[in-house]
């Protein structure tokens, strides 16, 4: 079908593309990287300048800033209109107003930034800082999640091309990609917030829900893992049994209202993660890496045992960040100590394992506080806002509150980005897998893991870097609707409110931030290229 045309086209493409890329690379060889970056920044600044003028003119001509007053029947309407005309300088030419704005922005270089004031006389610089921090908070997590999940899904679907799993992911990717955000938000609010909150008040599954959930899990897992019919059946049945028993146990323990994980849970899950990471990165045959990963987990859990009182009794962000850094340093050191001939691999394995163990530790502490959190906030998942007004819980309850508030918009943004990321990764991975050097790698007897992780995946990442960088820049602007439906006042609201009032200052501030983000991300993508692609580095 349509995917089949990949073979010949990509093959011939590569033949032509290689020499030309070489030429480009060698042409830039004589220029230092700094010069390249400076030239790029210079060109981007010019583009931004031109675009800012266009944007300004479009904004001030997009409507009538006096509209609300024209329809008013206030006796001193004319006076109000004159006042606003003077305040917003509506009688001056667009040129003058633009110049004024530009000189204000120019002040940023001399330390006296002035982005103007809104129609309500509020300082836009301050407003932009608040909006940008709110938007960044909203999109950072979803972007990270989308990259991890999207790339992983893309690789899995590429490896298992034309399987049921591939079709299912492809279909859902298209479904989520074409989903109108406001509608998906409405559904999410309905089921993940309102219905969930109704349910968590009791926190018990009905028996038939358990059966259906277990069936679904069994079906999904066998589709992902694949294999012969017999193997699929066994996978499915085992998963069904496991999930059903687990859910009944949760019911019996009232787990959803009193979740617990415990130090043993941290140990088991982190160890499993460690093994998985080793298998992916270094291969299980590399015993040193495996032992290094397991040592990291054990050290992490022992450290948890000693720091737990601190975490529960005197938590702070500083403590969390400090512990995280320490755990990262210690894990990498463990990797280096165990390393041997493959020290780099080993350090990577322990580093990742260390991060996962830290996350598990935090998850355990959070779970332990879930019940008291429910006591403070009986309907945990909110449909609006970035925080519960006047929420006064302890540190961990506040963290949970922030988490439950950010949950729905994050899910939504992630779904949409995962769709694109998985598609790009899939096609890029497929293309790489069909390259000659992959075939060579296979024929010289490398394990499939090594072929995929070391030879194919790394090369497949190159085009994805660009997409991810652009996506991040676009998300800042693209979160307008998400922000609006979930009541986050971020960059989107800044833009929208400004445009509605035909008020150029906030619109231009939005433009500046998104424009600069796009330029920077693009630059970052170019630099990342150099790191990923040895041909460019040379």
């Amino acid at each position, binding site marked *: 079908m349509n995917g089949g045309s990949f073979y010949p086209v990509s093959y011939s493409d590569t033949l032509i593309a290689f020499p030309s890329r070489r030429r480009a690379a060698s042409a830039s060889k004589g220029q230092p990287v700094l010069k390249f970056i400076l030239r790029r920044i210079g060109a981007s600044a010019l583009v931004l300048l031109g675009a800012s003028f266009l944007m300004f003119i479009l904004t001030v001509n997009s409507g009538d800033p006096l509209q609300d007053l024209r329809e008013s029947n206030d006796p001193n309407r004319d006076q109000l209109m004159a006042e606003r005309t003077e305040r917003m300088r509506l009688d001056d030419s667009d040129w003058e107003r633009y110049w004024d704005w530009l000189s204000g922005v120019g002040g940023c270089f001399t330390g006296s930034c002035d982005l103007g004031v809104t129609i309500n006389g509020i300082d836009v610089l301050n407003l932009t800082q608040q909006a940008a921090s709110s938007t960044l908070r909203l999109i950072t997590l979803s972007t990270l999640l989308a990259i991890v999940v999207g790339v992983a899904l893309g690789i899995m679907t590429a490896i298992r091309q034309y399987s049921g799993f591939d079709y299912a992911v492809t*279909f859902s990717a298209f479904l989520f990609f074409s989903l109108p955000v406001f509608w998906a938000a409405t559904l999410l*609010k309905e089921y993940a917030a309102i219905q969930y909150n109704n349910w968590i008040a009791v926190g018990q599954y009905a028996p038939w829900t358990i059966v259906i959930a277990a069936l679904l899990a069994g079906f999904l897992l066998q589709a992902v893992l694949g294999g012969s019919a017999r193997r699929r059946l066994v996978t499915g049945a085992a998963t069904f049994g496991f999930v059903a028993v687990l859910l009944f146990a949760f019911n019996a323990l009232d787990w959803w209202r009193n979740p617990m994980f415990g130090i043993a849970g941290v140990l088991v899950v982190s160890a499993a993660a460690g093994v998985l990471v080793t298998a992916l990165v270094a291969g299980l045959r590399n015993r040193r890496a495996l032992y290094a990963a397991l040592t990291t987990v054990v050290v992490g859990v022992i450290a948890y045992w000693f720091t737990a009182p601190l975490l529960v009794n005197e938590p702070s962000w500083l403590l969390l960040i400090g512990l995280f850094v320490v755990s990262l340093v210690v894990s990498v050191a463990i990797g280096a100590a165990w390393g041997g001939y493959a020290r780099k691999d080993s350090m990577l394995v322990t580093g990742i394992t260390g991060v996962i163990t830290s996350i598990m530790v935090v998850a355990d502490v959070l779970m332990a506080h879930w019940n008291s959190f429910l006591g403070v906030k009986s309907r945990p998942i909110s449909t609006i*806002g970035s925080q519960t007004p006047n929420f006064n819980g302890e540190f961990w309850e506040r963290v949970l509150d922030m988490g439950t508030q950010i949950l729905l918009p994050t899910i939504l943004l992630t779904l949409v980005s995962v769709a694109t990321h998985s598609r790009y990764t899939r096609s890029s991975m497929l293309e790489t897998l069909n390259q000659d050097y992959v075939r060579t790698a296979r024929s010289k007897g490398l394990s499939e893991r090594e072929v995929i992780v070391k030879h194919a995946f790394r090369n497949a990442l190159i085009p994805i870097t660009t997409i991810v960088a652009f996506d991040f820049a676009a998300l800042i602007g693209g979160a307008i609707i998400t922000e609006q439906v979930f009541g986050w006042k971020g960059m989107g609201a800044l833009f929208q409110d400004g445009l509605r009032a035909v008020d150029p200052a906030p619109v231009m501030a939005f433009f500046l931030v998104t424009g600069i983000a796009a330029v920077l991300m693009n630059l970052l993508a170019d630099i990342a290229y150099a790191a990923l692609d040895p041909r460019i580095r040379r």
Partner: protein
Amino acid sequence: MKIRRLSAAVAVAASGALLFSACTSPAGNDDPADGESTATSAAASGPCKADLGDVETADGEIKMSIEDEFLSYNGLTPEAYSVYNSAVVDQLFGNFYYFGTDGTICTDENYGTYEAISEDPLQVQYTLNDEAAWSDGTPVTYADYMLDWAARAITEDGKVTDDGSETPLFNHIDGLSLGDYVPEGPQADSPDAKSFTYDYERVYADWKIHAYPPLPAHVVAEQAGVSTEELVTAIQELDMDVLKDAAEFWNKGWLSKPGEVPDPAIAPVTGPYDFKADGWESGQYITLEANSEYWGTPAATKELTFRFIGADAQIQALANGDLDVIQPSGPTVDTTTQLEQLGDAVNVDTNQNLTWEHLDYNFNSGIFADSLEAREAFAHCVPRQKIVDDLIKPIAPEAVIMNAREVFPFQDNYEDVVSASYDGRYDEVDLDAAKEKFEAAGLKEGEKVRIGYAAPNPRRAAEVEAIKSSCDQVGFEIIDSASPDFFDKDLPNGDYEVALFAWAGSGQIASGENIYSTPGTQNYGGYSDETVDEAWKTLSSSTDEAVHAEQLPIIEKQLWDTLYGIPLFAHPGVIASSSNLVNVHNSAAQTGVLWNAEQWAANTAS
């Protein structure tokens, strides 16, 4: 093929989920049983606030939605003046009067009393409650009203305004109107007097709503570096050295940095609520807490939180308990349907408010300018009943055709005014009469009629469509000439035959003079009629309610007979509140549901 079938099935399932979600929004509150008997508690018998007896502030928080950020403690500057800013500051300041649920002027005797001690020349005496005080302990006095007068009277050049058209020193939304009518300023014996009089230079029909809640003179004086007495003297003597500093602070000093609650030292309050320390998160919410120094009936609930949320997100937030009271702007049929689906968990209150929609003829040019028959022909074919039935009743079932301009269907004197001015001839479409008049006017088949309004506006587009399908049968050719800059270009240029828009009622008695008399500043169509002019003059130069009641039907009748335009309907309003709350009622006035916010309380009966 297999894939296609599967995806089609999932697509159907997905769209089914949409429909499903639309019909089954359940209520957020767990116990529907206690949502029944809320209406009984203190139902107001009239348009004014009910007397709740002894109220003790109960702990708790009520979350209300407003659609935009709080801006400033001083909501009287044009920058900060918005419906949403007023929603917050209205809770902070007491005043001599407030608007009841149908726009009636109600007095607040907690705060003070006022009366006209002489009708002509008009003299109004205000007497503040002896206990009335700012939350920092300073009594509310004559000095505060002196500052209020200064802000509405003194020009940039340091004079008292002559005709209200000069550039003012203070940036007040009301301009210089008070100085225009009361050039001498309020009169009292001493700066700390509790009673003072306004001596009007000429009669002002709307004297009852001339007092704004004052801003604290003692704070402004301190900021200008003088004592309160010195500030009062400076105002009396027009000492610009002091006044410039005072105005500078008045204009800019109270504008808040988003998220920073105003310092209590410069922002004392006189209302039932006060700012809560750290209670403002920029872009998210602002919380007010009961003013512990309030001398009157205290707020029923300790905390009132305004969350800044757009209209589309409000209903689900109400269902999830993130909000307790909502008032979505621009309610549509969907709003009411979705709210109804929440069942017993919420109380929904629809009404008609003081904004009304109308069709106005262009008297400056075009086919309607000189021909009464042409106007009558058009009036006969406009399907007013159908427009109300199709577009308004689904939102607010009590909606009716509006047959007057200065009174609203839900007001007491509506029946009297309408029966004296209009016989109901344009209620239903009468195509035969329309055709007759059409011919009498000498119009030819295919006569173009441009109906102008500010786009985009789906409801007005639907109205024009309804008019087109009816009036085209008469021989008109209706053209929908909506444009985004209708008020900016088409209306002043006269590029329309009929203008379709709404006036927001201000509660003033004489504000219509600007619209219907010659040459009123808002008489866009250029209508002119001697009878109407004279009646307005009589009305606006009298404070006698009997005179008002006598002149109003004269004006309305003449406007109907000469067909200034065709009133259509009062805009519908929808509010909803959690059924756990009592005393939440809708109001037609601009304050909306918030008109009695300090009376809202959790239902303790169940």
